[in-house]
Every structure is written in C-alpha cells, then in structure tokens.
C-alpha cells in the first residue's frame, strides 16, 4: 500500500511551502526519517522527512514549486506498485492548481508529530481560513461590511467560534478604492497592504537597535523647506472665495501622502515578526484636545483633493475636540503628521505612534534670509523633522522620502501633476 507524502506545516504560521530541492530521486529507497526534500517555509528552509520507509515512487511536484500545506508532493511505496489511483485527481491542475487542505485526502503520515507539535496532528485544517467556503459572520456584520467595503476575510471574529460580529468591524479599514490611474510605483493589487516577513538581517538590526535605545529605536531627520510657492498657491486659492481657504497643514498632509506613495518603505507598520507595507495611505493628524491629544485619520489622503482633505480635517479636528470621534476615525493610520507651527515652534521632534513607523513634526513658517540664485533673499521657510522607527526605515530611506516631500512642497504644482 503506497503512502502519500504531503506538504507539512513546518512552522506554526506556515500556510504554504516552496519545495526547494528534492533530496531523493524517483526510484530511490527511503527509510522513515530520511530527508526527502528541502522546503522553504515562511520562516526558514526546513527538511521534509519521510514518515514511512519504502521507495520514492513519484515526485508529484517539481523543485521550485510552491504548494499549500497538506498538498500532495510525492508518493512512497513498494517498487513497481501501481499508484495511478492515488494520483487520480492530481493531474491536470498541476501543483499550482492543487486545492488546499479540505479537499485533500487524509494524510497517511506516521504518528510522529510534525514540527508544529501537538496543535494539529493532522494538517487537515491549516490556518488558511480564507480558503474555507463558510465565513462565520453575523448577518448584520455582513451588511455593514458590504456597505463599507470591508473585506470580512481579513477580519478576526470575536463572537462564539470566531464569528465576526458588528464590533469587530469598528477598526477595520475599507478595501482599497478603485486603483487610481496614476503611474506611481504602487502595487495595483487589491490588498490593503503587503506583509513582508523579517529577514534574519532585519531581525538582528531590530533587536540591536531596540536594546540600544528603547522599544522603538528612533532617529531623526530634519530638513528646511522653502514655502514661498506653497504660500502663493494658498493665497491664490483663497482668492477663489471662502471654500478655497485651506491651511498649510492641509498642503503638508497632501504632500506627505503623495511622498508616501513614492516611498512605500515609510508607509509601514512594525508588526514584531514582520513589517506591514501599506498599499493605502492613511495619514494620522495629531490634534490637541483638552487633556491630551488624539490622532484622527485622513483615509486615502493620497487620493483626495486638497479641498477634500481640508474639509475632512476641519470636521475631524472639530469633532476630536468635542470628543465625538468614532474609534474607526482615529485608528488605522499608516503615518502621522504633528504640527506645532501655529505655536511658533521652529522645530521639534515628535514621538512615533506605534505601530506606525514614522511621524513628521512640522514647525512654523518663518521669514528668513536664504540664498536664492546666488543672492540673499527673504524667504518663507519651514522646518520639518521626520522621526523614523529604525527597525522599519533606514537613514537613507527616510532621507529619500524627505527629499521627495521637499520637492513636492517647494513645487506645489508637482502635487497635481
């Protein structure tokens, strides 16, 4: 009787594995415990071990192929045994097309538990809940999610048996709006973000930096921006009438959002074992309230016009002071802006709002002598300081983001270009 060799969950979070290299050829004798192949998991490259002895009759997938956990990768049996029945249904689709877990037959692995330990003796139900047909959610939660464009598959339910109920949607962000027709280097995928597991290098950097400076190892970059043109643009808009009145903060928020689009590395969350690079830009804006501060979020700020940003920021700031913000209005930001310009602060450093990786501190716009075209002139200048979580953003990455921001603010037309 031939035995199937299945892709095993070699780490607790593994959902699929890439077969890097077969260590046994078809026809090779194998003993239980022999390494059959090397598999790259989400964490590392691990050995896939034979659970029974015999002959490797078939390599079902080729090296380099990625398959979900519990997919069939090979067959072990007696030399010459007919295994066509076992392979039935595996043809045609090829490795990529294999159905995960639920349609796969029960694995015939030996009782020795795989690396995952006691949690899942049969890998019949891997963590790929997204592939399950039945999504547990209350009818009300479904309606609200449909209305707000929330992807329920991305939500962890808090009801009985993980059922998604209304309160679970409170902090969920809507799915990406229809992809903008811009040529900016953002992934047009539907997902709101991309999780990138930490490399060993990244892990070590994170650990060492955190040991040195505190839980969020921060460094600071300051730049001075010439706001002369932004000033003119604002005056010009103001001349259009009352609805043209926008604040410098609105212009900075817009500039930051657009710069983040070009520098996704700064639009990210530190998630302990991974970095979440957001494909959406949600700018948190620090607002002082009576006994503290709160950060309402301008969602999809990169896709919004200055006018929208201005209206939204007025509304959010107003309601923030009245303490009337809903939780979903002050959570889920991907980057923060803190402005003390109105208090005539020239320059300051802001504290990062985790899990976000960066915050920009905006100083006052001050008339200063500056050299323009080889002559000293009086210019309106503004100092901004970027605080970066060094585990996510490196010096050069942060500097490049600041340079883009500077270009955008010094040439406001570039923001609508």
């Amino acid at each position, binding site marked *: 009787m031939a035995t199937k060799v299945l892709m095993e969950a070699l780490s607790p979070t593994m959902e699929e594995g890439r077969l890097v290299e077969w260590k046994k050829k078809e026809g090779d004798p194998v003993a239980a415990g022999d390494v059959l192949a090397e598999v790259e998991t989400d964490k590392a490259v691990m050995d896939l071990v034979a659970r029974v002895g015999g002959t490797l009759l078939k390599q079902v997938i080729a090296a380099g192929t990625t398959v979900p956990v519990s997919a069939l990768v090979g067959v072990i049996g007696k030399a010459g045994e007919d295994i066509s029945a076992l392979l039935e249904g595996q043809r045609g689709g090829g490795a990529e097309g294999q159905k995960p877990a639920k349609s796969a037959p029960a694995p015939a692995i030996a009782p020795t538990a795989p690396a995952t330990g006691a949690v899942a003796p049969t890998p019949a139900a891997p963590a790929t809940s997204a592939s399950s047909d039945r999504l547990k959610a*209350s*009818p*009300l*939660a479904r*309606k*609200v999610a449909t*209305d707000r464009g929330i992807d329920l598959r991305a939500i962890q339910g808090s009801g*009985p048996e993980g059922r998604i*109920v*209304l309160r679970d949607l409170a902090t969920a962000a809507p799915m990406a709006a229809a992809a903008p027709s811009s040529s900016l280097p953002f992934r047009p995928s539907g997902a709101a973000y991309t999780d990138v597991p930490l490399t060993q290098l990244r892990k070590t950097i994170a650990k060492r930096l955190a040991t040195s400076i505190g839980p969020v190892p921060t460094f600071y970059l300051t730049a001075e921006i010439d706001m002369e043109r932004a000033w003119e643009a604002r005056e010009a808009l103001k001349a259009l009438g009352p609805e043209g009145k926008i604040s410098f903060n609105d212009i900075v928020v817009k500039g930051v959002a657009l710069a983040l689009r070009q520098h996704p590395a700064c639009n990210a969350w530190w998630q302990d074992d991974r970095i979440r690079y957001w494909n959406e830009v949600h700018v948190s804006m620090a607002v002082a309230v009576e006994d503290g501060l709160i950060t309402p979020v301008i969602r999809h700020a990169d896709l919004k016009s200055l006018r929208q940003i201005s209206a939204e920021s007025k509304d959010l700031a107003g309601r923030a002071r009245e303490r009337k913000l809903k939780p979903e209005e002050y959570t889920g930001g991907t980057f923060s802006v803190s402005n003390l310009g109105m208090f005539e602060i020239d320059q300051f450093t802001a504290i990062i709002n985790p899990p976000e990786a960066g915050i920009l501190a905006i100083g006052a716009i001050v008339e200063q002598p500056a050299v323009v075209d080889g002559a000293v002139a009086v210019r309106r200048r503004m100092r901004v300081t970027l605080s970066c979580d060094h585990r996510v953003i490196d010096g050069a990455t942060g500097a490049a983001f600041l340079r883009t921001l500077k270009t955008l603010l010094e040439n406001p037309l570039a923001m609508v270009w």
Partner: protein
Amino acid sequence: MAQFDIIILGGGPAGYVCAIRAAQLGLSAAVVEKDKLGGVCVNIGCIPTKALLHSAYVANLVSHDLKDIGVEVGAVKTDYGVAMRRSRKVAEQNSKGVEFLMKKHKVTVIKGTGTLLPGRKVKVGADTHEARKAVVLATGSRVKGIPQIGLELNGSTVISSDEALFLEQAPASLAVVGAGAVGCEFADIFNAFGAKVTLIEALPRILPLEDAEASDAIAKVYRKRGIQTFAGAKVTKAAVGKDKVTLTLEVAGKTETVEADRVLMAAGRAVNTENMGFKEAGVQLNERGFVKVDLKTLETTAQGVYAIGDVAGPPMLAHKGSREGVFVAEVVAGQHPHPIRYDNVPSVTYCHPEVASIGLTEDQCKEKKLDYQVGRFPFSANGRARASNETDGFVKIIRDRKYGEILGAHIVASHASEMIHELAVARENEYTVEEVDLAIHAHPTLSEAIAEAALDSMGRALNI
C-alpha cells in the same frame, strides 16, 4: 474553619445558579442563605406573583369573556386566600427544587447571615469559612417605603409586596404607589379579586420604562377594567389611619384625594449592602448605592470578591442575575466567558395582556438621534389572537434604517413573555429584520405578528 473554592452570599437566582455553574466546573461551592433558597424571586417575588396572576387571569376570563365563547358557569366567586395559599405551595415547590439542585451538585448550603471578612473569608454565626478563589456577593434587594411623605411600611395599612403576598383576603380598596412591573401586576391581581384599585405613578406614564405605546395600551385596558390610574402624579401627603389611608396627589396642577383601605408600595427597591462587612472588607459602592464592579469581570474593589444580581446594579431582574452568576463562576474557574450584553436583557410585565420588550424604546432611539424605522402589527389582525378572543396588543419592531439592525422590540400580547425570546435570539446573533422574516413562522400563531412587524418595518407587511 471550612474551606471552599467559592463562597456565595445569597441563595437567590443569581447566587444559586452561580453555585451550580461553579460545581459543574469542578469547584467546591458553598451558598450562605439566611432564609429559604431561591431568594426573593422564588419565595416572595417572581414565582408566587405569577401564581396569583394566573388566578387573576382565570377570574377575568370566567367573569367577562366566557359567554362569548360558548361556555357558561354559574355566579363567579373569587377567594384571594385560596389563591394565596396555592401561590405559597408553588413557591415552596420551587424552593424545594433549588434545595434538590444544591444537593445534586454537592453545593454546601450554610444557613445564616454571612458577614464578609477581609481576605476572602465569610463569618456565619460563630463559624468562619474561607474561600480559596472567590467570594461572590449575591445579597439581593428588598422593598422600600417612602418615609419622607409619611408612607412608611407598617405591615397593616401601608404594605409592600412582602405582605400583599400573604393576605388572607383582598382589601375592598387598594392604592398602588408605583406603576412599574410590580405595581401593574398587583393592580391586575387585586382588581381581578374585586378590589377597587387606584394606580399612582410619579413619571408621566404607567410602565414608565416601557415604550410609550405599550404604556398606553395597558392604560387603556386597565381603564376598561375599572382600574383608576394617575400618571405624572406626586403623592404630597399621606394620612395613615388605623384602617384607612388618605393620599393627597398633585396631578397636572390639580389636587386629587385617594382613599383606600390599604396602600401597596411598589416604588423601587433598596439593595442589601449594609451590615455585612462589605465596607470593612474593601468593597466600595457606587454613587447609586450598588456595589461597584469591573464590568469585564464583575469583580468588586476588593480582590477576589465579586458581585452579581441586584447588588451589582440594574436591571434588577432575576434572569440578569442568573446570567451574571454563570459568568462569574466561569471567570473564577479561569475561563473567558462571552461578555454579558446588558443592552439585550428582556424585560417582562406579567399583567394581562403581558408586556415584553428588549432593546431601545422609540423615545430612546429619538434621544440618540438614530435613523430608524418602526414596524407594527396589531393582534386584531392576527388569526390566532382572534380565535383565542385575545386581540389586545401589538408587536412593534424598531429597526435601523440602513442595515436593518433590530434596535428594539416591544410586544403587548396575551403571551408576550413567551414571544420576546425570538427577538432576543435575533439580537444576540445580530440577525436583522430580514432574517426574522426569512424564518418561516407557523400558522396560525401569535408569533406570526413578529414576522409581520419585521416586514412592516420594511414597508411590506402581508396581512394588514
């Protein structure tokens, strides 16, 4: 000194249920009870009043409605004493039932008044008992008078439900002060047993916590039945005589006088938090006099001491206390029970017809400025209600306009108490009005009115 995992002060519906759940989870449990097991609910509350209300229902049925349905009896005579003794028997059976449950689950019952000592200890008489994991305060509540205006409970002319439940005969006339659930139920009972009943409520409506439409429906039925009601009435003076009480009321700027043989006080209850060592053991009360608890665990300000039932705060309902009992037992056993949804506790008044509700009233929806839509269905359009000659009442469902969430539901019906749970289940599981309608309702039933009210909220009721 005896040791238990959990010691519960009070054997009412919160305490005894907590003990059973704790025992199920493998904890050794003790209940301290100074009186009969089952507490106010079983002995002098929910259960005996329901027995009397059944007598009242039958009395009304044979006195007024029988001829129409083809049954004739001779002259109808009622006897409150007989009804009272039957209600005592029912209460005793229930209390015995709780005793049996305690034995079945090997819960130790300690007779006496418990005093809380610091360090999770409880003193009963000369003995001190120690709880290894938790002490649970389930000491309940009691009736109260209004001594400020001369209405001090005296056990003869000014009485509470405690005495009303043991009267040998119905008084010739009775004034009921307070028209919440208790006041309305006793008005219903004594009216059926021939008393001239006056019902007095300080707030603008009888059943003031219910939806205004429910209040109005009951007020109308009571008027028809000869119960005089004064809502928005303030008792300004009480002259308590030997066998008569004269109340002076202020209603809408006018002064009214009510004379009655007895006055039944049904205006609120006081929680039992005094003289049991709570304060000394570090258990603080909140500004409303209830024991202060952390709603996430129901733990009081004293570590390892929990509070459930009436002492832990409103609503002061047996079923809310029982749920808290289960919850605390699970917390103490190290589980993570599902949080209690205090906005989803049904409330029932067992007058005739009954009033049952869950969630928000329409006035509350207005106050919260919610965007809502009301669906209604009257029982006069329901086949089963017509067949049973019980067409008073309606089902009212308030839904959120956008998503169809059931914000509140209100039922006035002969069996409203049994019908409300369909909507409790719907709300607990976040079903919207659509799912309520999609569940096929048997025909002919009163419950069809629920599906119709759900449909009506979407503008498509079928049978009206």
